[in-house]
């Protein structure tokens, strides 16, 4: 799971109203270079919840994102590079996503988060 995907997910536990962002607990992750697409990054910037991205990046040891960001920063190549790295080049392999409200843990194994709920949580 990459951090782009993390930015889209909320807790699906029944009754939870404030399930975003899921807290990322990363035990194992990998980095893999991909080509930077500046147009795509600009497109994504409007959708990304920045604080959630910066928090998730810190959970995988990447502290190079500013705490806050605004669209004017997209003119900086350095900023784009960091944004790109955090969003698309880090793959969380093992760990968990934790619901901020209920504390329910969704395990991540072999890169795949398991968001399936038990009968009593539906």
């Amino acid at each position, binding site marked *: 799971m*990459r951090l*782009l*995907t993390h930015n889209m*997910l909320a807790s*699906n536990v029944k009754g939870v109203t404030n399930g975003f962002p899921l807290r990322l607990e990363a035990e194992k992750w990998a980095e893999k270079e991909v080509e930077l697409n500046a147009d795509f990054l600009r497109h994504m910037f409007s959708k990304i919840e920045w604080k959630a991205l910066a928090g998730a990046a810190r959970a995988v040891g990447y502290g190079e994102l500013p705490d806050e960001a605004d669209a004017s920063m997209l003119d900086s190549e350095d900023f784009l590079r960091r944004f790109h790295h955090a969003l698309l080049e880090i793959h969380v392999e093992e760990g968990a996503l934790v619901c901020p409200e209920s504390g329910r843990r969704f395990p991540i194994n072999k890169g*795949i988060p*398991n968001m399936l709920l038990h009968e009593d949580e539906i």
Partner: protein
Amino acid sequence: MKLKQLEGLLGTLQQFSHPKVELEQYPTGPHIASRLLYTAENTFGDISGKVVADFGCGCGTLGVASTLVGAEQVIGIDIDPESLEIASINAVEMELDIDFIRCDINKLRWRDHWIDTVVMNPPFGTRRKGSDMEFLAMALKVASGAVYSLHKTTTRDYIKRTALRDCNARSAEVLCQLRFDVPQLYKFHKKKEVDIAVDLWRFEPCEKIMIV
């Protein structure tokens, strides 16, 4: 990538080893899958540079095809862990980066209209009535651009009506009719191969409601 080349590559993917009847697991063949993605990209520009979700991804055929035609990020969702495992292997063998999530489509809680495009071959709803429309309603909730889906031609009028009335669709258009060979995976199919007519649909969701 040329259509024939795409079709050829999709033909090399591993498919369900033990298909589960209750989940309606049968793969989208390379012929249909390649045409679906080719049309989405070349006629509508809905794939390259986009975030694409593959709903009920199974062994990942549609997600792989999306990546091959240029999707920037693909996310495949299925309820079945064994299919997801095969899908991951397919992605690795093709040297593609695809994210997979295990979840019940009905229980997705994603930020609204965050995905650009959804591609899917949902269960036809023969085992569990209505599951095709559940997939469609959820797809139109998470997509901001377009949803591509396959449905039985016999249900065409119903799909159109329900999509527009109940599923948040702004438009619903049949792009073409295809023949779908459902191989004899299941005992209740009497003939060797059941050839059914399916429609390739393109839906657009209603107005953006960005929720942050």
